[in-house]
């Protein structure tokens, strides 16, 4: 669980964290606009009942705390919550790193269209 994952390390290194963005654009929102969607994602996952290796609520939160403290100590909240969740899903094989890389590229292309 604690091994570094390349695709997530690249995101960490680019450092587009909310405090930086908020200062750059002069906004005062305490959390980024995707935060509530992430909350919805976590809640939906917690209620998922299927055969995949999905972490349950306690496992997800424990892994988030552990990863935030060990692999992602430099990330602020809620970026560490998001990246820890991605890490958990990749480490558990729910999501494949290659498909995540491809999806990140296609979504960015879509949003910048």
């Amino acid at each position: 669980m604690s091994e570094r994952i390349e695709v997530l390390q690249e995101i960490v290194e680019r450092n587009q964290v909310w405090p930086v963005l908020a200062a750059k654009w002069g906004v005062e929102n305490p959390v980024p606009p995707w935060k509530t969607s992430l909350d919805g994602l976590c809640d939906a996952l917690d209620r998922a009942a299927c055969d995949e290796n999905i972490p349950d609520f306690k496992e997800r939160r424990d892994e988030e705390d552990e990863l935030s403290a060990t692999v992602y100590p430099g990330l602020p909240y809620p970026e560490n919550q998001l990246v820890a969740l991605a890490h958990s899903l990749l480490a558990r094989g729910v999501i494949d790193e290659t498909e995540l890389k491809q999806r990140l590229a296609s979504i960015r292309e879509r949003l910048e269209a």
Partner: protein
Amino acid sequence: MTDHDHDHDHERTVAPMVDEITDFEVLEIALRELCIEKGIFTAEEHRLMTEFAEQIGPTPAAHLVAKAWLDPEFKKLALAEPMTASKEVGVDWLHPTGWGTPSDFTAFQILADTPTVHNVIVCALCSCYPRPILGNSPEWYRTPNYRRRLVRWPRQVLAEFGLYLPDEITVHVQDSNQKHRFMVMPLQPEGTEDWTEEQLVEIITRDCLIGVALPKAGVTTNVITDTRPAIHPGAAG
């Protein structure tokens, strides 16, 4: 903030926004889409949980729609004179309180859905929203992702909220402009014919009044999710 020709005073009415797509925003969307595609949850379940996460209760706008569903004469008033109808649910657009500011608008219009037309609102240029009657806009409403894409690919964006509309239903995207504000009046869903106003307002959620969801019997805004406080070990970073 994007360049545009609004004539109202953004310094006083609209907070600045981050007009930049970040890796983290993209990552959140990617995780969500992959989970949906793997059948772990649906887009609609996610939208619902997001709405809960924002802790939105029944708004004055929900009461207005419920009254209109129950009283055809009030519905006529709401569509013909929306600002008069708003007063009946406690909102005076000329002297709004709470989130509204007098400089927010000069016109308010209610967009009534029909069996063949579905309405959805956006502000493609910034984040204009009917705040006096609907409260603060949700975070996603203010993102470039929603603002830029809804006007061009409405069915795709609505599907991302779990709302799939058949081809025979026309999607009408209403872009707020200058000082106009809009809200959607959805159709009363089946199974609610004998409901009271208080029962109806529970299912007329904020997202239904924006147009990214449809009201359904049994689906309310008032479900409290199980949460535990987050620990922020990296907060100093």
